[in-house]
């Protein structure tokens, strides 16, 4: 198997692992990690498209590579925004959960939110 094919399979595997973790892990920060795994898997699959586009003097197609570079930066910006939201939620409520029932359940003996 050539390196691009191996990297493509790694990318596919990463998307699979990330998707599983995104659904199964209840903790928001772990969901964010999982989302970043999916992202890097997608970038890697795009990366082999770039590698296969090698023509002439170029060992790669520069267009997908440039898009992956901007993609990595945007993924970081989105992660930072998600972290800021989580920390603010924790600060306000003392907990971070995506479970909609958690906010309506009786808490410390008090009814309702």
């Amino acid at each position, binding site marked *: 198997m050539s390196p691009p094919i191996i*990297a493509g*399979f790694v990318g596919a595997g990463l998307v699979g*692992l990330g998707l*599983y973790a995104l659904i199964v892990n209840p903790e928001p920060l772990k969901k964010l*990690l999982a989302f970043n795994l999916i992202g890097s898997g997608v970038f890697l*699959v795009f990366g082999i498209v770039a590698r296969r586009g*090698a023509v002439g003097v170029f060992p790669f197609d520069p267009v997908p590579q*440039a898009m992956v570079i901007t993609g990595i930066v945007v993924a970081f910006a989105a992660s930072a925004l998600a972290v800021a939201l989580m920390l603010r939620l924790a600060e306000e409520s003392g907990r971070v959960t995506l479970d909609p029932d958690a906010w309506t359940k009786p808490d410390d003996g008090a009814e309702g939110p």
Partner: protein
Amino acid sequence: MTLFDALDLALAAIVLGLAAWTIAAREVFSAVVGYVAYGLLLAIVWVRLYAPDVALMEAAIGSGVTGVLLVAASTRLGRLPKAEAPPGAALKIAAAALSLIVAGLLAAAVLYLPDPAPSLAPEADKDLAATGLGNAVTAVLIAYRSFDTMLEKVVLVLAVVGVWSVAPDRFWGGAPAPLGPAAPEAALVFLARILAPIGIVIGVQMFWVGADDPGGAFQGGAILAAMWIIVMMARLAEPPRIGSGWLRLALVSGPAVFLLVGLAGPLMAGSFFAFPAGFAKPLILFIEAFMVLSIALTLPLLVAGPPSREAGP
């Protein structure tokens, strides 16, 4: 099987193994540490795909700066009580089945990509001489698809505004919380003093050589950003007040200069975001210099988070 084949397979196994560790680790902190190691190894995979520019980006941002962000978040969120029970077996099986199908389809798509592969490399090569650049990736970013890159810089500024906006009203205009403890480890302070001057030189160098060799505004800016983050973690500098005029001006300077040059395109070269022949490279470096500045500011501000102290007099 040659040595490189064996290395490629081993690398693939370790990357997937670390990704599995990241999602299986019980403690969020362990998961984040796994993710940082994963990002560094992924950078080597990118090198094997002949993508040194992407590898630099993945190592600096995907692993380094994201790592700092997530480690800081995990130490603050890890103390909270676990809010909900793990999902039941049925959901796990359904999620595993769905993930297997998606991964399988992607793997199949990788195997059955069209051959010969469609490529824009000849197009990129054709006009490379006109841009005066030697690095085709930089040419795509700043010349061929410059509008895209300009909008991406706007997204970064919007992300900073988004992060700032979650602050309570009374802190608006104030400074984010310090990145490190009040009395940082002496070793960290020493590291910051030694590393920062070297890192600043490397960051500027990486931006400068990016015109012809792997590197560029994004990579150079990311390294400068990392240096500022280290200095702030060692408490040699504090996060700036977000109300500061120079800070806001520097933040928007990247996209603003890019947009102004783009708007001047119709006058200079006959179309929006066009560069005049023979004068493209100086203009590209001019745009990139401001991009480096604004990236080097944006990333640490995103790590520092919303303001948490009052603005003061």
